[in-house]
């Protein structure tokens, strides 16, 4: 039996942890903890990027890792925590589907994701196969979270977690996108979060709450 090099074993372990974190996000209703989980996801992503960078020796991956660390581990969680304090949103309401139900759907989604990733995984090098399936699973699980949550803040965490899944997918399939593109994406995420901060204050000013049930008056045909 072939032994897998240590660094790849680590990347695979990180992938598994990433999936685990996605599930804990699904079950977490405390928004502060959600943001902490998101920061941990960012940290895993950073370590995975640096591992791949070390293995391939590509300098732009080191930069990308540092960028991920600065943006996803330090800046965004800080921004979100600040928003939570200023807006005083600590708990999400009961999700549309109760938590055990969501977890069951999540398991089905993981199975589906591995099926979906099959054609890509077959082309990828043997060792990163599992990571691709996991990346797709993380994307879809974040999607599920966005659908089932009603607080704007949890939806945003879901959105960022989806972005993390995408980055992990890019890392495990192609060893990262070209530098120009990665910089652009990072810039977009940063601006998106700033826009969002402004936006939250506008919503609260108007409705006195960040519950998205207030945002349901525009219906088809009105």
């Amino acid at each position, binding site marked *: 039996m072939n032994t897998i090099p240590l660094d790849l074993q680590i990347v695979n372990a990180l992938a598994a942890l990433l999936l685990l974190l996605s599930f804990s996000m699904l079950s977490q209703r405390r928004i502060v903890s959600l943001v902490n989980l998101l920061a941990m996801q960012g940290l895993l992503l950073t370590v995975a990027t640096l591992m791949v960078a070390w293995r391939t020796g590509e300098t732009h991956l080191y930069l990308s890792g540092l960028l991920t660390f600065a943006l996803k581990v330090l800046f965004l969680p800080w921004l979100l925590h600040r928003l939570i304090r200023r807006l005083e949103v600590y708990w999400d309401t009961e999700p549309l589907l109760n938590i055990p139900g969501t977890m069951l759907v999540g398991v089905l989604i993981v199975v589906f994701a591995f099926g979906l990733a099959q054609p890509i995984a077959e082309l990828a090098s043997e060792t990163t196969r599992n990571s691709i399936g996991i990346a797709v699973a993380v*994307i879809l699980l974040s999607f599920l979270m966005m659908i089932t949550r009603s607080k704007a803040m949890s939806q945003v965490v879901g959105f960022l977690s989806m972005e993390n899944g995408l980055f992990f997918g890019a890392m495990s399939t192609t060893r990262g996108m*070209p530098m*120009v*593109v990665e910089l652009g994406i990072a*810039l977009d995420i940063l601006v998106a979060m700033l826009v969002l901060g*402004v*936006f939250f204050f506008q*919503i609260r000013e108007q409705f006195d709450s960040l519950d998205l049930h207030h*945002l349901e008056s525009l219906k088809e045909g*009105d």
Partner: protein
Amino acid sequence: MEFLLLLGTPLAGAIWLGFFGAKRRAPDVNVGLSLITFIAACALTARVIEHGDVLVGREQFFIDPFNVFLVTLTAFVGLTTSLFSRPYMRIERDHGKLSSRQLKLYHSMYQLFMATMLIALTTNNLGLMWVAMEAATLSTVLLVTLYRTPAALEAGWKYFILCGVGIAQALFGTILLYFAAEKVLGNSGVDALLWTHLNQVKAQLEPSVLSLAFVFLLVGYGTKVGLAPLHNWLPDAHAEGPTPISAVLSGLLLNVAIYAVVRCKILVEGSLGSTLPSNMLMGFGLLSVVLASLFLWRQRDIKRLFAYSSIEHMGIVTFAFGMGGPVANFAALLHMTVHSLTKSAIFFTVGHAVQKSGSQQMDDIRGLVTTNPTIGWGLMLGSLAILGMPPFGVFASEFLILTTAMQQQPWATPILLLSLAVAFAAIFGRVQPMVFGETQGKRLPHPPALLPVFAHLALVLMLGLYIPPYLAEWYRAAARLIGGE
């Protein structure tokens, strides 16, 4: 040089207006910047007519027959919209709807939005295209919520989240494309996402990965096109934002998004050699046409009415690209052009009509022809043009699409015809009393700028009767390109 001016002017303008956008002269500066951008686009066009395709900036940017007319169109509508927004935004400020801070934001974001669209159109790098598309969303989110009403906030939130999630799917599609390209072009860094390089090796790209990539890309960029069932954000964003933004969203952004879809389709079809991408485009297109024409009946808000009409027309264009072949592609490109011109002209008249009556409800807007004949006739002619009446250009493109459909996809023709008829009845029945009914409207404090409306309609009329030879040549060349030759 022209390139630098084309992309640099709106970018620099966005920064400048970010600081000084509340000055009394800011609307004029906005017009001036758009004019420079338009002149740069014209110079670039002249260069393309003379020397053919252009590839600059280490191959990161390019102009070919498929994007040259879209660049000019974007710069042109950007210019006319800035002309329209000059009196429009002044009236809004006089009505007390906007503060000077909001005006600053508006002017700055307007230029940024133009810049991102021009980058998305001219970039050769599919990754950069994604970045520019996302930036286009972000620059308009705060414009949709400019009025801070509950409805505007809801529309902005929907726009942000739906387009954000959609565009994330497109990023995954781009990653998959890169993955397939890397196998062929090698991990040479930037080159593997350059469209011109990919187009050369498209036959060698791994089909199974590309078909999966296309699904994600179509869903992602399709959300921005407003294809049903991903269209939910579109009517809200169009209805709640300021009218100049509705005009550029509908007239330009949708075009840019469909441009992105078609660029990807060329690659995927070349790799697959099957009809999967075409069938998907036809399916989504037809569904959008049918759903939009049904929803048109239920609208009471004038801007929502024309937003649904945009979904319908994007459906027609998507369907035509799905059918493929030189004639259908030609017609789709023509339809993109005339729809963009007509729809923005309609939004210009709608904007002033709404300001006169103080309401977007169609029941409150009456008798435009008696109080302000130019607005009334502008709206009437615009509606007739968008509904496909001859001799306007929309008639020519829809006629070509329908005749091609009869030959290639006979089953779809009755569905298309029926939807067009339903849309005609819905829109015409609504517009007629607004233009000719009884009224006690008041005059506007600033004279409206209606030159853009009639300039657009004149162009659409001209395209219905006569297409300039070089434009026709670009359409044909682009149609061949899209056909994969």
